[in-house]
């Protein structure tokens, strides 16, 4: 049914291009045995419909074992409910992406009858499973789910969602809406000027009851926030708002109770409703993303401990100084330690950003965060987990205080709010005193009108709406901003600092170039392929990708020499791949700046043949991005790598002072600090691995990630790698948002100015002031929504046009 004519074979399960020879099964091609196995498993359980919901829906599975979840510490944390018959557990499965996932995951009980039922929350990517724990352990369940391609993300103890908060807001929003709507109904006779004494009083009391609920329940956050800020001697925008609400409410209560008028509870509760809508709008959260990961997210959750010669798994938190651990190939070192047994190629790229591997012999010390490549080793922990070289970075001030950005950031609304409050209060006092002297019948009208009409609800409404829409639009472009404060800071950035590796440059997608003295025979190519197949070195992986049509052939005398290369004989023909020296190649003087680390040399029968070059390449579109940005921003480049690796980028950074190489993670952070001391508003753009500190320190830390569902470091915003060339446009969009707010604020000032001039003269009836107020709010809401959407649509169209070209 699905025969391939193209050269690229698409995996029937996961839809990836098969890099190696595809595996054929029932006339369907699979890229790996994992995909094939999932297919078989689904077929055996009559779940083929999985493939009908979507085209190539699957995810290549992992063979990771989750048996460590059976450890009591994990079990107790994950299982939310358990009785004699069943247990209930929730997993976060970041790989969920389509209808097929829903179909498969909600039919898990057909694959394993010990599963009673499952329920998926698609938005949050959470799967809740009810299962019989006495027959199916938690670890086995997680392993089963992982083997289908949905590897559960097991979080650290600290990661917690703020669900209850949102529920509260929903409740308040609903109640406020209810109060506002009904208050309007009861005020209807008043609007029409119908006078009917008894009903008027009844409606008045009903209104007052509704208004009290709206002000004291729905608006309770305003009371607590203002109180908290006043205690810190700070005035925020919320103070004049609360003042307006309270004065309006107080006046209405007085009128109603003294039967002197109808009050304007409808306006007051309407205002609260609008304000809460704004709040709800700004709380837009990306449930499936985590912006707050700390270093522990990088580490394994469990380690293999060797105690009295027996291997056992233990949660990471339980290890201490002196423990012996077994570290297998590709595992990450959890704490500073000594190497006891074996030898290792340590990949510190995560810690330092350097791409070279460092050979480590027994007895030498190794640092947390290094990834071990090679045969399993034994290490002895020399420092506590939280005191190691790597984690010290997180002990810096920026990390200790989770609010250091939001608290120290004077946002526009609060800055304005402060002056606004003072001007307003003095104005009201002066007008009140004046009228008290001149015409005592007018003073209360004047004061109330001033406070009500000048209530900066326009700003309070337009701010969350404009920025909330902004966040929503950017998320459509795969640029996820943490909150509206981060969005606002983004608009004020004037300096951009880029990290190099993984951000501006990528391991090239371009074909590596082959520089051999003579063409190789098929046999020789196969030999190179077979040799590379034995190793997990990054270059070996590249070779495997480069030679998809080669096949494995037998060999003898295989040797892997750390830091040098690989060697084996094929039909008594010795073949070596590796460094220039190891393969007796003459290392030519480097042409330009290109470094030798990305070259793989070859010798056959001790004859040097040349090398294959694997270029690091700029991300597509980077040159244009830098070209555009450097006119608008000051741009910097920092990198943990050596200068030679970045020659192709240097042209874009005019001033050599703005380029810094061989930075440690801490130095990167200090670099940002130095810029901030000069009064610059810095955005750091990095991949979040070795520049986590810098991301945290900068006013805006933007993590560039090609796989944001699986890995999102601590940052203010997460940008999909393919969107990086558009960064300038998105920053402009943020600027536009803030401009829009300022413009609408000005407009409302003008509008309020007119009202105020009447109010000061004591000619404005509070009722009219109270009608003007919601009209003002609605117009601000419309301006903010319309403006941001209009600009967002423009961006979208621009993007579609770009893609078409």
């Amino acid at each position, binding site marked *: 049914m699905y025969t391939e004519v193209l050269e690229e074979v698409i995996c029937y399960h996961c839809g990836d291009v098969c890099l190696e020879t595809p595996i054929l099964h029932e006339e369907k091609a699979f890229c790996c045995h994992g995909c094939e196995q999932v297919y078989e498993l689904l077929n055996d359980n*009559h779940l083929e*419909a999985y493939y009908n*919901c979507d085209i190539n829906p699957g995810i290549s599975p992992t063979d990771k074992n989750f048996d460590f979840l059976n450890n009591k510490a994990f079990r107790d944390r994950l299982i939310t409910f358990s009785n004699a018959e069943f247990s209930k557990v929730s997993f976060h499965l970041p790989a969920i992406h389509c*209808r097929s996932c*829903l*179909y498969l995951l*909600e039919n898990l009980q057909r694959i394993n009858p010990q599963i009673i039922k499952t329920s*998926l*929350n*698609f*938005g*949050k990517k959470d799967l809740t499973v009810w299962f019989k724990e006495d027959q199916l352990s938690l670890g086995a369940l997680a392993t089963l789910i992982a083997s289908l391609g949905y590897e559960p993300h097991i979080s650290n103890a600290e990661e917690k969602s703020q*669900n209850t908060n949102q*529920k509260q807001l*929903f*409740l308040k929003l*609903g*109640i406020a809406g*209810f109060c506002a709507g*009904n208050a309007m109904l009861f005020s209807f006779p008043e609007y029409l000027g119908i006078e009917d004494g008894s*009903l008027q009083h*009844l409606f008045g009391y*009903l209104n007052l009851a509704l208004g009290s609920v709206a002000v004291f329940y729905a608006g309770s956050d305003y009371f607590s926030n203002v109180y908290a800020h006043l205690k810190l001697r700070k005035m925020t925008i919320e103070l004049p708002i609360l003042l307006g609400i309270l004065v309006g409410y107080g006046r209405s209560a007085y009128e109603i109770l003294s039967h002197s008028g109808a009050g304007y509870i409808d306006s007051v509760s309407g205002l609260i409703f609008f304000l809460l809508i704004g709040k709800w709008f700004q709380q837009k959260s990306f449930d499936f993303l985590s912006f707050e990961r700390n270093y522990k997210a990088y580490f394994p959750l469990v380690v293999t401990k060797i105690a009295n010669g027996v291997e056992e798994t233990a949660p990471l938190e339980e290890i201490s100084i002196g423990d012996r651990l077994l570290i297998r190939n590709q595992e990450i070192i959890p704490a500073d330690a000594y190497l006891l047994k074996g030898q290792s190629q340590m990949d510190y790229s995560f810690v330092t950003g350097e791409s070279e591997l460092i050979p480590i012999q027994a007895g030498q010390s190794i640092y947390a965060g290094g990834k071990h490549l090679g045969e399993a080793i034994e290490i002895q922990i020399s420092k506590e987990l939280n005191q190691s070289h790597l984690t010290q970075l997180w002990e810096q001030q920026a990390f200790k205080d989770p609010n250091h950005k939001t608290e120290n950031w004077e946002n526009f609304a609060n800055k304005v709010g402060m002056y606004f409050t003072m001007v307003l209060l003095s104005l009201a006092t002066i007008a009140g005193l004046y009228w008290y002297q001149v015409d005592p019948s007018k003073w209360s009208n004047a004061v109330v009108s001033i406070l009500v009409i000048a209530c900066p609800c326009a700003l309070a409404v337009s701010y969350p709406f404009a920025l909330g829409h902004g966040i929503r639009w950017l998320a459509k472009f795969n640029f996820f901003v943490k909150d509206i404060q981060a969005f606002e800071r983004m608009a004020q950035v004037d300096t951009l600092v880029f990290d190099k590796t993984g951000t501006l440059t990528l391991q090239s997608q371009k074909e590596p170039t082959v520089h051999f003295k003579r063409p190789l025979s098929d046999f020789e190519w196969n030999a190179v392929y077979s040799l590379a197949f034995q190793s997990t070195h990054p270059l070996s992986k590249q070779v495997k990708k480069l030679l998809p049509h080669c096949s494995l052939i037998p060999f003898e005398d295989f040797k892997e020499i750390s830091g040098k290369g690989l060697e084996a004989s094929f039909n008594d023909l010795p073949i070596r791949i590796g460094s220039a020296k190891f393969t007796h190649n003459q290392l030519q003087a480097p042409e330009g700046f290109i470094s030798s680390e990305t070259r793989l040399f070859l010798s056959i029968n001790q004859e040097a043949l040349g090398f294959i070059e694997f270029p690091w390449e700029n991300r597509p579109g980077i040159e244009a991005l830098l070209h555009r940005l450097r006119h608008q921003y000051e741009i910097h480049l920092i990198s943990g790598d050596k200068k030679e690796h970045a020659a192709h980028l240097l042209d874009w950074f005019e001033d050599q002072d703005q380029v810094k190489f061989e930075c440690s993670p801490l130095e990167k952070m200090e670099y940002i600090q130095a810029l901030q001391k000069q009064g610059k508003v810095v955005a750091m753009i990095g991949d979040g691995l070795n520049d986590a500190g810098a991301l945290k320190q900068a006013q805006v830390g933007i993590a560039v990630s090609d796989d944001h569902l699986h890995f999102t470091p601590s940052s203010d915003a997460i940008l999909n790698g393919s969107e990086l060339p558009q960064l300038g446009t998105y920053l402009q969009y943020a600027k536009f948002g803030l401009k829009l707010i300022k413009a609408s604020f000005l407009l409302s000032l003008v509008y309020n100015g007119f009202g105020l001039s009447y109010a000061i003269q004591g000619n404005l009836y509070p009722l009219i002031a109270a009608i003007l107020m919601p009209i003002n709010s609605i117009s601000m809401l419309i301006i903010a929504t319309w403006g941001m959407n209009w600009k967002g649509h423009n961006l979208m169209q621009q993007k579609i046009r770009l893609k078409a070209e």
Partner: protein
Amino acid sequence: MYLMIGLSLFMAIGFVIAFVWSIRTGQQEDLITPAMRILQEDEKTNNL
């Protein structure tokens, strides 16, 4: 007249209670999945 007001109040309060109940029991928590779930085909009924 007063009966009508009483009735309308009664209804309005009923709606508020319904709303509070729906939030408390988490009915608004996942608005995406049920919409997708209903589109799943029940192709397996004949097998059972």
